[in-house]
C-alpha cells in the first residue's frame, strides 16, 4: 500500500535536512513527471525529473542485460554537485540533488527511508 500524499512531504523533508542537500523529489519513473518536490531556487525540477526518469529506464535495461537485477541506488558525481536516486518498488524514483561535499552515506539512508514510506 502506498502512503498518503501528506507523507510525501515529510519524507522529502527528512532528505533535505541533510547538510549540502539542495533538493529532493519524488518522480514517476514511467512518465518522468514530478510527484512531489522540495527544491532550492535555481534547480529545474521538471527537467531533472524527466531526465532522471529517462536515465533510470536506460539503466534498468543495462542492469537487466548485465544480469545483475534491478538497481537499488545510484549516485552520479559531477563537478558542482551530485544526483542520488533510489527507485521504489511502486515505480517512483526518490531523487536528491546535492553539493559535491555531501555525505553520500547519510543521503542514501534517507533516500531508502523515503522509498519505504512512498512504497
Amino acid at each position, binding site marked *: 500500500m502506498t502512503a498518503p500524499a501528506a507523507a510525501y512531504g515529510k519524507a522529502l523533508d527528512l532528505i533535505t535536512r541533510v547538510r549540502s542537500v539542495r533538493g529532493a523529489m519524488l518522480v514517476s519513473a514511467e*512518465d*518522468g*513527471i514530478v510527484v512531489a518536490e522540495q527544491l532550492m531556487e535555481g534547480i529545474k525540477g*521538471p527537467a531533472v525529473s*524527466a*531526465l532522471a526518469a*529517462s536515465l533510470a*529506464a536506460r539503466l534498468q535495461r543495462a542492469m537487466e542485460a548485465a544480469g545483475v537485477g534491478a538497481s537499488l541506488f545510484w549516485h552520479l558525481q559531477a563537478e558542482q554537485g551530485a544526483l542520488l536516486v533510489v527507485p521504489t518498488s511502486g515505480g517512483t524514483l526518490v531523487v536528491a540533488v546535492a553539493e559535491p561535499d555531501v555525505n553520500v552515506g547519510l543521503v542514501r539512508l534517507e533516500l531508502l527511508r523515503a522509498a519505504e514510506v512512498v512504497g
Partner: protein
Amino acid sequence: MTTRAVETWTLEPLVKFVKEAGARLVLVMTSAGQVLAQHGFSRAVDVMSAAALGAAIMASTDEMARQLRQPPFAALNHQGERHGIFLAGLATGRGRLVALVVYDLDVSSLGLVQLFFEQLATDLQAASPKESVPKQVLAADFERQLSDSLNTLFGR
C-alpha cells in the same frame, strides 16, 4: 525517419525536438489542420487523418475551455500501453500552431516530451517570420494547395 517541412523555418526546431525528445511521429500544423512540417509519417493519408483529428481535438478542448470560461488548455496527453500522444498549442509569428507528438513509451516519456516541447515552442517562436499574414485559402485552391503541401512533405 525523415523530417520535412512545407515552411522551412519550422524544420530546424523540429529536427532538434525529434532528436531530443525521442519522438516517433510529429506534426506541426495550424489550428485548421494545415500541416507545416512532419516527422516520421510515411503515407500522405496518415498525415491528413492525423492533422484533421488533431485539429478537431484542439477545437473541441478550446470550446470546452471557452464554455468553462477558462483560457484554452495548454496541452493534452493520452497514454496507451506502448505509445503516448501529446497535443499542444504554441504561439508563433505565423499565428497559433498545434503540435501533435506520438512517442514510444520505451524510448521517451511524457516528462521528456513536455520538457523539450517548451524548447520547441521557444525555437519556433524565434524562427517564425514576423508580421506575416496567413494566406487565405480559397475553396478553389484548396485541393491544389493540399496536394502541393503533401508533395513537399513526402519529398515528391
